């Protein structure tokens, strides 16, 4: 296959950054292309670039203080994009994330079951059978933006956000699902809780998952939840994982 490249747009973002955008959609091919380009820029180790960050279909290049010559910098970036090896071979891991869907945690399961006309069991089954793609980490330290939620589980955010959502809450907001890594306010519908650490600033790698990895939620009982919570707090819980060949 010839190398798949997209028509990208380059925009100035203030005096010190350039925003690169792919077509406006959430798509795994686009993610791979974003990550491929990102890795190539980082590999070039360009001195004036202090940060390169990405989201679904965009990449932001942050320069040290100011981006002096926008056209020159864009030319440099375009040539990196065109000359980079078309393959992006980063190992993707499938993480099996334990989630307790007990109603003690899944405080919105009942309301969601009525709204969607689906049994709670069916919601849990559909939520835990899907394989989700990790697109990026944002919103809160350790919050994974996941793609791949079953269409039948889409559920609008609550009109009034809750002031406190528990650490580990597994939730659905619109077309997205995710886990709150720390206690926070939030408007998503809570369907369970995951007992593991999503962010630990003391660890060399603060989040276990990275963009391009995959995730599956594994339903667990309250007993298992409590056990894993203890192990996780002691820093000895190993999240089940395997290499993903998707």
């Amino acid at each position: 296959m010839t190398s798949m490249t997209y028509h990208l747009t380059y925009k100035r973002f203030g005096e010190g950054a350039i925003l690169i955008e792919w077509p406006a959609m959430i798509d795994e091919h686009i993610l791979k292309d974003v990550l491929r380009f990102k890795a190539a820029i980082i590999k070039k180790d360009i001195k004036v670039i202090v940060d390169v960050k990405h989201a679904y279909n965009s990449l932001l290049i942050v320069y040290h203080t100011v981006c002096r010559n926008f056209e020159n910098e864009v030319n440099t970036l375009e040539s990196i994009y065109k000359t980079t090896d078309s393959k992006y071979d980063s190992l993707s891991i499938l993480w099996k994330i334990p989630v307790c869907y007990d109603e003690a945690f899944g405080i919105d399961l009942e309301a969601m079951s009525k709204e969607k006309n689906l049994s709670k069991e069916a919601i849990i089954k559909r939520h835990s059978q899907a394989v989700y793609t990790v697109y990026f980490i944002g919103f809160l330290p350790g919050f994974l933006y996941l793609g791949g939620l079953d269409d039948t589980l889409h559920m609008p955010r609550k009109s009034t956000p809750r002031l406190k959502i528990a650490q580990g809450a597994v939730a659905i907001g619109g077309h997205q699902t995710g886990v709150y890594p720390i206690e926070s306010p939030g408007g998503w519908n809570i369907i369970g809780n995951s007992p593991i650490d999503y962010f630990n600033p003391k660890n060399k790698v603060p989040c276990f998952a990275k963009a391009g990895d995959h995730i599956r939620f594994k339903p667990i009982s309250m007993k298992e939840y409590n056990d894993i919570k203890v192990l996780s707090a002691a820093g000895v819980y190993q999240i089940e994982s395997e290499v993903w060949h998707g």
Partner: protein
Amino acid sequence: MVEVLKPGLYATIQDKGRFGFQAYGVPYAGVMDPYAASVANMLVGNDEDAAVLEMTMTGATLQFHSAAIICLSGADMSPMLNGHPIENHKALRVEKDSVLSFGGLKRGFRCYLAVSGGFETEKTMTSRSQFKGVTNQSVIAKGDVLPIMAQVKGMLQKHASIKINDAYMDANTIEVFKGPEFDKLSREQQTQLLTQVFTVSKDNNRMAYQLEQPLENDLDPIITSLVLPGTVQLTPSGHLIVLMRDCQTTGGYPRVLQLKESAMRTMAQKFTGNKVCFKWL
């Protein structure tokens, strides 16, 4: 060491912030008014990005457990040393057991205290900037004892002649560039954005400043994309949100403007009820 007798309304230890961790969703954080922080640091002979205490609206009451050289910059909160008024932008030596306190807010919103050597509180991910979930402590609290780095001797006079221009504190013009979604706005919306006088709402903090006067907004949300401190977002209700240093790494609202870096310090000194307008660069 400095003991916190009273923390004031909201005070945090800040340095220049945390870079290179956005991929984990970790905000940059860092001083809201880098100019004031660096002036205070330079006047006590520190590097300009040494950790300082950032106090918001009301000052803290602090007791020095050892002698130190200190300097204040940014907001004028009627500072007093052992009950006697002192001034911003004057480095001075405080003796052991001295108490630094503050009175009424006279000008600006955020005041910086630099101590010679710099504060030596916990460092997480290359920075001492306090942020919930990243550092153990997210604000300073009564009874905290803030360590200070070993002091460098004889530095008091080093920057005594530094020229200070703090006119930015009283400015209400915020210089901006186009944001990525600016061109999606109608001519009317664009004009309103650049001519309207906006009022800072009560929702203002280190993460963001919301502005009161809404714009007509018929833009669709965007696919969650990247934001920076200084990004101005247009919310579905038509309100503008100016993102500040503790802002999230990503956001889904249209980004209509981007503040010039030097406009961030002006914004950081504004508070509820203050007026601002955006000016094209």
